[in-house]
């Protein structure tokens, strides 16, 4: 029989039937159901196994605070573990499955853990699995991981998309229950920009779950009309299915909107949106969460929170039982009996811990004042309860009410601590709220309907005034205040049985007492040691009863005991939502050089360097190994001419009357006297004396320079220069702008470089060696009038130029260069060939300038000018940076020339152990030199300059290699630089 526990009424849409499966069995529910309410309607009581002891568990609540009913939703790549059935909206075709069992849900083999419970008490990990130490990784941890844990991940890429969004408003209303709706109406009417967010798919909060009246209408109907009125206001934006999960600095709130979680697969648009809401003010109307009473056997399926039972009956028209008992310490618990009785559901008993007069009479119900539930029976679902004194009552659902906890979570995200209020036996928001936040209604401890409505209205009026809005003369919505007296009763002494506090983590009253005995007195220690309050529900129903027991153990009050710290997120937020669209190829932006398309046409292999994609080499037909391509590119460049895309170098335009002075201070070497039309290599230090970056600066015209930086440091150097300009020398007349993206730039290197360029450079410009010598620079035109800049600088060690054209001509320029080079058999060369040639030449890059080396270390000590100050000069003279035995840059070649070298190897003298104490330095760059015909390397070794010709060991324990190498000059090729001056 379908939906055998469905009753009349409720807010479900019976015209829409949804069929769904749970553990493979088909059921039916209606639109407006949650998975949990549909399971209740179908009389499914056992929905999962507990985390540690694998005890049968049922639905405990009707909201996002659910500790028990964690299920896997959907299948395939969309399978999502540990979702709360109480918060999952039902849709046609929903597939759900219980989790954490072995065998089957009804006959879970791991339920054997329950028999071992004496060994699995608080801190059992720390006590039980200590010895022998080696067993932890190999034996204990895998077993524990297999047995514990909850649902299973799909292990497949998430097929859905997620997005981020930004919103601004005057007033953010968090929660759309009675207080929140009253606040939203008042705010909306003032004309302020209002956002209303509620985690439920139906706004109205408890009004949807109660049989109360507002303004003479049924509560849910009033909520509907209020929502309709708000929806019609242009200045109000409603966000149902949206959880405000965190409060961040300066009025920023994080919210997760679930847009398509309630729809079938394959819907358009993002599944979830992570909103960053910037609100001038926030009205927190997050309501309250009912808490249980702990008593022996209180974890059986069928034991539920009393108000949640009411929610299932009133809102979802689903009866959690046929004969229901209520166990309460407060007036609110009685309303469950009253509402259910009115719906014709049998009430077996009301057990009130208070020794007072009964609130009312319920036909057919045993009323026990001053009573205690001391035991329960029923293997897979509750069958009976036993009271103190031995009386047994047959019941299939026990509704427990231990009072209400104002939902203070978001009030504590800026380290505010809640305060205890004796009259409602609960924590309320403390005085230190996040700036701009006002708390109203049940969240603020105003637990009755009429008062909450008025409170929401009135607090919003004063908030609006503070923002300069007129709130108008509207009256607050009217409602009666219900009886809400509560007593502080937390748990029934467990005796031999186990009274559960945290259902999700299987923590009992005894565990807590044990933790206290063992010295865990602070609540934060208690939480970590027992795991109470951890995992998906963060102890929303468990924390306060646990604190009460802690207080009892230590003889302090609950107020003195305090709470653990509440941190975002309020409920779990998928990592996918945080990632948004920044995943896979869109993880971060990709920068392409102006001639990228041309390089792609050549079949170039690309490599990521920072955000850039750079051509690594250009394979030709018949080449099967990258070394073949690279060797060919090097040989051809050195023999004739090669062309390399160097657009990624940082380029900074520097202008002003004090530009030369500025360069002179930020570079270690002198720049005060660089003539117009000349470029110079520049070495930049950090203020601590370590090398920061290197590059060139070209003097283009009076008061106008162009600086280049390495690709990797372009951003950091620019930031540093702006710091120097604005913070250190604010009156220097100098201005900087990054022009990295404005210029395409190509190195043209090799003996035929000039011949090639002469074909393209317009005739007005003389680039002969006499007119345009090494380190010359100038503004020219190419190809019949296209503006260009030419720099005679060389990284390869060859006769070389770098030619820059505005970025939009980059593609045309590379094609023109290659066409002009055809007669010389010009090759394009990539990053690898560039690297080989600079190692052959002994030029340093990031592998050598890696943040620990000085100018002296890399053989440029004399470049640090003695005649002037510069950034980093003073500390570069520190004793430790000028110590004689600092490793210095040298060249290395394998003694056996057929061997390869490894960057990262460390140098050792012969006969000593490969330990840190004997370390003499390291290899920083290696390559195969096609010119020399063997491997070469650059590296740093102590007193290297005195040790040319000496043989040392290059030990590489990581790769298990050791190579004998000879120390040589770092300039393997053309040490006098004749080629580049040619």
């Amino acid at each position: 029989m379908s939906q055998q526990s469905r009753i009349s009424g409720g807010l479900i849409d019976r015209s829409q039937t949804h069929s769904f499966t749970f553990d493979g069995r088909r059921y039916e529910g209606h639109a407006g159901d949650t998975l949990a309410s549909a399971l209740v309607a179908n009389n499914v009581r056992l929905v999962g196994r507990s985390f540690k002891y694998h005890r049968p568990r049922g639905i405990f609540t009707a909201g996002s605070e659910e500790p028990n009913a964690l299920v896997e939703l959907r299948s395939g790549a969309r399978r999502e573990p540990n979702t709360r059935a109480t918060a999952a909206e039902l849709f046609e075709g929903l597939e759900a499955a219980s989790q954490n069992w072995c065998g089957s849900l009804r006959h879970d083999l791991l339920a054997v853990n329950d028999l071992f419970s004496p060994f699995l008490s608080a801190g059992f990990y720390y006590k039980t699995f200590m010895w022998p130490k080696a067993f932890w990784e190999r034996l204990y941890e895998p077993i524990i991981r297999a047995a514990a844990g909850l649902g299973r991940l799909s292990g497949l890429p998430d097929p859905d998309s997620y997005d981020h969004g930004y919103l601004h408003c005057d007033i953010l209303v968090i929660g759309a229950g009675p207080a929140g709706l009253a606040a939203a109406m008042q705010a909306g009417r003032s004309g302020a920009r209002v956002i209303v967010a509620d985690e439920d798919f139906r706004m109205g909060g408890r009004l949807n779950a109660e049989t109360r009246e507002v303004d003479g209408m049924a509560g849910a109907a009033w909520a509907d009309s209020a929502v309709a009125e708000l929806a019609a206001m242009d200045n109000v934006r409603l966000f149902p299915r949206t959880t405000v999960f965190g409060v961040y600095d300066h009025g920023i709130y994080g919210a997760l909107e679930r847009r398509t979680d309630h729809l079938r697969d394959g819907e358009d648009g993002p599944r979830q949106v992570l909103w960053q809401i910037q609100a001038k003010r926030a009205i927190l109307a997050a309501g309250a969460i009912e808490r249980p009473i702990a008593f022996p056997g209180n974890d059986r399926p069928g034991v539920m929170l009393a108000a949640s039972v009411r929610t299932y009956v009133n809102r979802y028209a689903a009866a959690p039982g046929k004969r229901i008992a209520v166990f309460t310490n407060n007036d609110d618990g009685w309303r469950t009996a009253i509402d259910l009785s009115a719906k014709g559901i049998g009430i077996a008993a009301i057990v009130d811990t208070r020794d007072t007069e009964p609130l009312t009479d319920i036909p057919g119900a045993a009323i026990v004042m001053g009573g205690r539930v001391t035991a329960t029976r029923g293997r897979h679902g509750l069958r009976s309860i036993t009271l103190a004194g031995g009386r047994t009552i047959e019941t299939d659902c026990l509704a427990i009410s231990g009072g209400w906890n104002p939902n203070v979570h978001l009030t504590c995200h800026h380290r505010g601590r809640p305060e205890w209020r004796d009259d409602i036996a609960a924590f309320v928001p403390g005085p230190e709220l996040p700036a701009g936040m006002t708390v109203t209604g049940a969240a603020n401890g105003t637990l009755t309907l009429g008062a909450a409505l008025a409170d929401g209205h009135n607090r919003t009026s004063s908030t609006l005034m503070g923002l300069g809005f007129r709130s108008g003369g509207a009256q607050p919505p009217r409602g009666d205040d219900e009886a809400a007296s509560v007593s502080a009763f937390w748990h029934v002494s467990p005796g031999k049985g186990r009274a559960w506090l945290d259902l999700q983590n299987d923590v009992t009253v005894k565990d807590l007492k044990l933790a206290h005995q063992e010295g865990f007195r602070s609540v934060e220690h208690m939480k970590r040691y027992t795991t109470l309050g951890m995992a998906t529900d963060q102890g929303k129903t468990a924390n306060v009863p646990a604190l009460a027991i802690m207080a009892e153990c230590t003889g302090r009050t609950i107020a003195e005991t305090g709470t653990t710290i509440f941190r975002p997120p309020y409920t779990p937020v998928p990592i996918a939502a945080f990632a948004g669209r920044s995943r896979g190829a869109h993880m971060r932006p990709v920068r392409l050089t102006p001639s990228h398309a041309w390089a792609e046409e050549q079949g170039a292999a690309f490599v990521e360097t920072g955000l850039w994609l750079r051509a690594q080499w250009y394979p030709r037909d018949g080449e099967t190994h990258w070394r073949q391509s690279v060797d060919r590119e090097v040989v051809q460049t050195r023999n004739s001419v090669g062309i390399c895309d160097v657009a990624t170098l940082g380029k900074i335009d520097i202008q002003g009357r004090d530009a030369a002075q500025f360069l002179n201070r930020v570079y270690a070497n002198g720049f005060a006297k660089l003539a117009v039309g000349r470029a110079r290599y520049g070495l930049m230090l950090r203020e601590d004396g370590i090398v920061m970056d290197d590059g060139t600066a070209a003097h283009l015209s009076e008061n106008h320079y162009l600086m280049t930086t390495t690709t990797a440091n372009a951003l950091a150097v620019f930031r540093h220069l702006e710091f120097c300009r604005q913070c250190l020398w604010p009156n220097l007349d100098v201005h900087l702008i990054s022009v990295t993206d404005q210029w395409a730039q190509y190195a043209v290197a090799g003996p035929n470089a000039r011949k090639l360029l002469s074909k393209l450079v317009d005739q007005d410009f003389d680039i002969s060696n006499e007119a345009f010598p090494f380190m010359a620079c100038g503004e020219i035109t190419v190809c019949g009038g296209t503006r260009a800049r030419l720099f005679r600088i060389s990284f390869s060690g060859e006769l070389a130029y770098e030619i820059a054209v505005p970025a939009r001509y980059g593609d045309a320029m590379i094609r023109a260069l290659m066409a002009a080079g055809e007669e010389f058999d010009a090759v394009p060369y990539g990053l690898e060939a560039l690297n080989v040639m600079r190692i052959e030449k002994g030029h340093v890059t990031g592998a050598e300038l890696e943040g620990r080396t000085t100018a002296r270390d890399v053989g440029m000590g004399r470049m640090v000018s003695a005649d002037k100050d510069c950034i980093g000069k003073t500390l570069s003279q520190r004793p430790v940076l000028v110590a004689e035995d600092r490793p210095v840059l040298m060249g290395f070649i394998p003694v056996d020339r057929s061997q390869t070298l490894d960057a990262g190897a460390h140098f050792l003298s012969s006969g000593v152990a490969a330990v840190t104490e004997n370390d003499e330095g390291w290899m920083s760059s290696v390559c195969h030199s096609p010119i020399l015909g063997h491997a070469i390397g650059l590296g740093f070794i102590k007193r290297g300059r005195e040790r040319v010709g000496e043989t040392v060991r290059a030990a590489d324990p990581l790769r298990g290699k050791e190579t004998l190498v000879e120390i040589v000059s770092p300039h393997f090729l053309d040490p006098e630089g004749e080629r580049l001056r040619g």
Partner: protein
Amino acid sequence: MIINHPLLGPRDAAEFTYLGDACLIERPDPEAENAIEVFHDYVYLRDNPAGEHRELWFHEHGDRSWLVVTRNTLTHEISKVELARDVALSRGRGI
């Protein structure tokens, strides 16, 4: 966090790069007799106050201004935002 840029108004902190203590504006005199010691302190020694902290932020994804932001490290409350250049000038830095 929101930083109220003196020229551009309120901007999201994500547009900025953080450097640290604004005392970095006070670069010591390299001609001083004990220059190495005072530069050592300048580069390495920082106060780590629980409370008001004057610090340098760079508007990297904006107008490239360096700002001196006075921020309470306990509450993240920002009480003052100045152009670092103005601060440097007022501290006697010039050319």
